[in-house]
């Protein structure tokens, strides 16, 4: 007999069954079969072919760099936010979350307009008789887009973890003779690991799987693994290969999830 409260979850279970479980099952089915419906691993091993492996390497590299940049930008900020008084920090956090309320696609399109050869930034630069910026369609532009879009997802878990550190714990370290740098590396950094892991997950995974940022800011020349999968579904209509490559990508996501489960047992750094 199911208790009454459990019935409340039925709408969501229906939803997740229809839109999460079934599609996932379809991806697995297509990924493990060929066009005749026979079982094959070829769609998965296809990741090893030169073009695909290159796209995966580039994806991993750019996501890694973006995650590092996000971390270096977000950590000092989160530390400051965790220290300011409650009254003011809500406002500051709002400033960093505000971009998240605008559509992701719009924000990336805006960057395209800004960075273009004849875009806003270059107009201003040429007006000032400065050399033009040539970063559109380069990895740098993609990283910029990734950092811009995913930075709030790094800030929030870090802020969350850092603000949970009792001020007296830091005082205790000073009290026992530790200077600021020692306290940071021995106390603050280790205690914020749940937030760090969570932040890395929240940035690295979407960056790894994106295809919008790379196609808008990479000009279609720089193919990330997300673009390759996108093309298999939309252009070449090879759902089998697309699904197989998606499953490879899922392995990376699973690795990341296992890591965060290990380091963030209490869900301390989890979002929002």
């Amino acid at each position, binding site marked *: 007999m199911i208790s009454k409260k459990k019935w409340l979850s039925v709408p969501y279970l229906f939803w997740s069954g229809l839109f999460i479980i079934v599609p996932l099952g379809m991806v697995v089915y297509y990924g493990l079969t060929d066009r005749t419906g026979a079982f094959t691993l070829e769609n998965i091993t296809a990741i090893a072919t030169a073009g695909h492996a290159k796209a995966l390497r580039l994806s991993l590299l750019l996501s890694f760099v973006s995650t590092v940049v996000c971390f270096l930008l977000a950590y000092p900020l989160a530390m400051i936010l965790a220290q300011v008084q409650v009254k003011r920090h809500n406002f500051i956090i709002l400033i960093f979350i505000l971009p998240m309320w605008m559509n992701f696609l719009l924000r990336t399109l805006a960057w395209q307009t800004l960075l273009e050869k004849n875009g806003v930034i270059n107009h201003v630069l040429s007006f000032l008789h400065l050399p033009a910026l040539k970063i559109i369609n380069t990895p740098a532009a993609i990283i910029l887009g990734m950092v811009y879009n995913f930075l709030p997802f790094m800030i929030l878990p870090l802020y969350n973890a850092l603000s949970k550190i009792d001020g*007296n714990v830091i005082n205790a370290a000073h009290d026992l003779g530790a200077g600021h740098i020692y306290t940071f590396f021995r106390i603050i950094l280790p205690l914020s690991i749940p937030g760090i892991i969570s932040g890395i997950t929240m940035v690295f995974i979407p960056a790894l799987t994106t295809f919008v940022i790379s196609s808008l800011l990479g000009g279609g020349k720089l193919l990330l693994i997300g673009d390759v999968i996108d093309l298999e579904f939309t252009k070449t209509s090879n759902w089998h290969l697309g699904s197989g490559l998606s499953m490879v990508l899922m392995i990376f996501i699973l690795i990341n999830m296992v890591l965060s489960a290990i380091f963030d047992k209490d869900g301390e750094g989890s979002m929002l």
Partner: protein
Amino acid sequence: MNKELIQLIDISKSFDGQMVLDELNLSIHENEFVTLLGPSGCGKTTTLRILGGFTSPDTGRVVFDGQDITSIPPNKRQLNTVFQKYALFTHMTIAENIAFGLKIKKKTQSYIDDKIRYALKLVNLEGYENRMPDSLSGGQQQRIAIARAIVNEPKVLLLDEPLGALDLKLRQEMQYELIRMKNELGITFVYVTHDQEEALTMSDTIVVMNQGYIQQIGSPESIYNEPENAFVADFIGDSNIIPATMIRDELVEILGTRFACVDKGFGENKPVDAVIRPEDVMLVEPDAGSINGVVTHLIFKGVHYEMEVTANGYEWLVHSTTLFPVGKEVGIQVDPFNIQIMNKPESEDEEAVAIDI
């Protein structure tokens, strides 16, 4: 009295325009157990934080062992703090927590190991080296916090309401433990609490504070028996604070009845407050005492009965082991040395305030 170790000189501090400490002066002696006692917001914790170096005073100086340490950061001060809610490093084992300060001082591993063993023995937690703080109870965590502080051999240990989060039974146990530790270590303890019983049990000297001012400094006995003003009388234990008139030396008129007392030097026919502890009010047969009254309330408190007796328009709070039922007429008698005479408060700050603890 041992030699002076710490002097707080004219310390003032305000937060957001709110005066927390106003020209506070305090001397702490070597090997003394000093308790800063007062309601929340009285400035006791701020005083402790100024001593520890976590807050700097707006004006005034902190002198430690003859040296001005006002602007010296906490990590360079020769004192250690036991924080409220322990503030243990939850990502380190108990041994690593205790070794934290010693490693910074670059002590040898064998010295550190010895110290850890010694400290765990002192706090009765031998064999806990490899446990994590989260696996310990509140009382045990508090002991570790003390161990972590004392291995650094501070001259002064600052304790910020260290027993506040513990239940009553454990708190009483820890009070005796703290006294024992202090005697074994032979160092100065500066203890902050709002719990008057804790202060009376442990301290050599109690500093009663209210609204940024020191109200009274003295031994537990003198604070309890001879409160200098209504605030102290009201804050420390229960008391009857009754408006009275000092007729002449050793004679006071309370609610129209004259009582012999032992206080002198208040002048003649001067309005004063008389403080009488509830356990010092003796109930006798009607007309056998100084005034007559009627018992209006009765509560059994375990050790004694708590009664309220209305006499001459005042509700006397009485503690007695003898039961007088509600409605019974009784006589009230007070021994002269149990009447404590105080001057009327001169400022509002000294006014007795109702405090809920």
